[in-house]
């Protein structure tokens, strides 16, 4: 596993296409790899944003998951919420891998900042 860590950021960016539509207040993620089974459950999206993205609040959003198209769309009610998540999404993969590397190396300080997740 450790040997994969350095390349994970690139793999994530290559495998997942993120598009933000400011007019529709929507962000979509499309997984290009073939997935066996469901792409994700809606609560997994929230956990991902909180665990790796630093989201600390409950933001109202509609989560549409198309398992056939391997596409997830997040729709927001306000521009402010949209921009918050858009900003998180810009660095989500980098942050996720950095956190994993940091913790693997024994530094768990950022783990303490993650809120309780009902997973």
């Amino acid at each position, binding site marked *: 596993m450790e040997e994969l860590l350095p390349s*994970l950021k690139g793999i994530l960016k290559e495998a*997942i296409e993120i598009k933000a539509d400011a007019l529709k207040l929507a962000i979509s993620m499309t997984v290009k790899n073939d997935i*066996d089974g469901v792409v994700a459950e809606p609560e997994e999206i929230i956990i991902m944003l909180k665990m790796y993205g630093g989201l600390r609040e409950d933001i109202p959003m509609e989560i549409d998951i198309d398992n056939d198209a391997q596409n997830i769309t997040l729709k927001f009610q306000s521009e402010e919420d949209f921009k918050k998540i858009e900003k998180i999404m810009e660095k989500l993969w980098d942050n996720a891998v950095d956190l*994993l590397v940091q913790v693997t190396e024994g530094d*768990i300080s950022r*783990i303490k900042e993650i809120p309780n997740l009902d997973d």
Partner: protein
Amino acid sequence: MTDPNAIENNPFKELGEIPEKKYTDGYTVDSTYITVRDGVKIAATICLPKGLSPDSKIPTVITQTRYWRAMELRIPFRWILDSMVSNAPNPEVVTSRGYALIYTDVRGTGASFGSRITPFSEEEVKDGYDIVDWIIAQPWSDGNVVSKGISYTGTTAELFARNNHQAIKAVIPGHGFWDPYTDVAFPGGCFDNAFIQLWSFLGKNLDLNNPKVFRQVMPEAWLFVKGVKPVRTDKDLQMLNKALEQHSSNQYVYDNTIEEDFRDDQLPDGSSFDDFSIFARKDEIERSNIPILAWCSWLDSGYCDAIIHRFMNLSNPQIAILGDWNHGAALPANQFFPNRTSVTPTPKDKVNAWINFFEKCIYSNGIQGKMIYYYTLVEEKWKKSEDWPPIGHSYQKWYFSENFTLTREKPENDVGDDTYNINFRATTGRNNRWWALLGFPITYENRIKVDEKLLCYTSQPFEEDTEITGQIVLCLYLTSTHEDGAIFAYFEDVDENGNITYITDGQFRLIHRKILSEDPPYKILIPYHSYKKEDSAPLIPGEITEVKFGFHATSVLIKKGHRIKIAIAGADKDTFLRYPKEGKPIITISRNKINSSYIDIPIIKKENQ
């Protein structure tokens, strides 16, 4: 990390070079339930070489675990990584060598059905037989099955040999126990509270598919893992949820032993620690005559002793290996080289060596006889021997003497003793050989500061390089103010500059001090204590008693000019239970011509000595 330049006698080299891969396109992953004799469904994940033709027949490596045979990863990692990415043995390496690889959740764990009262129960062991029947009935199976694993999976691998199934051709138990009472749960009769509690806690949460607990104890796993992987066809998770319901009646070692003290205390199902040991199954394992490759580290819990006891007691064709890494060999652990960062051999090199062993056992004459390979710390060399102890082994006494010294001469004074108020704050920390069972690094740092809390005896500088290989024996003549207590003793190297390096240790609860003259249940090289209730006795406060026990085995070179040191404590607060539960004992250790406390050190004499 063993010195990569240590080529001579290196077992990983002697097991052969890495051949060309038979399959290079990766592997397929599938999963299913295997129904065993009593109807319990065992979850299995099957990896096959990609490109295996329909008429091909290949052997199988099986690993039975209680730590989830496969994990459901969190997103986004689930989207990009194979779910087997963290599995051991590495499926890419194993399948590329032309083997099927099967991981199962043992009954009562993971996605398997059933429940469990003890680990390694007879039912769990018998499941192995039924699973092998299933394997050899598969169209891709050539009828040969081998097993390997580390720690829990190492023991399940070894217990395949007890099943005596004709398809099983070889087993590789890595870092597994021989005697769970002394090797892990009660070393020297002292309860390993920290590990047993944490291990049981983790096990319970794994069995209930509750990864939240990882946040505290294994945060990297918490970031990465959503839970146990259901079998492929269980899309709506109905089967998994039913299995988890059955796990709710599982019982755990900590709950069943925290109030116990003795080897013969009964567990809820009427069994005892001995019943799930390897030594109790010796006859069946020997009957199988299955070749065994067992490996471990000098610094891993009491499992180093397990390697030696297995080697001495089992007649099966056998290779035994003792190195200097942590539990599972993910990290270096040689205390003399704290700056080493990686392990030699690498995990992939090890798996390839293990498969070379399997190939010998499946396709040629297997291995003949027995050979133990051991790594001598400081000398940084591999050695091998057909016997244990090795040729040249003899004991050398060092007596506790005045001014906290160790001397070769027996004291001649009529009186002489040292008093020590037990310091219950003494600790080896949480990176010691016992916490290592959770996969943590092993570091015994700051021994100078730690030893300030202990009663210590140090020798004069050695006049020549001296190899110590085997189990040190400590003999104390002591009195105590209390009826119960324990000794935790550390054997250390002191260099010319006063730097102190931990080598090994021993611990012993004083109520077990009776040395029995009858034969122990298996051959040992140290004083025999039964740890049974009938042989225990409280100390009589103020009365001198002999306490004699063995340390965990080691192999080290004490260099010319270095000293040896024994540091004695009465507690190791972050690991073991406190003995006695209350009170502050004062012990007095005699060092006079009548009661001469000493350590007996296993020296390897060179041929010209």
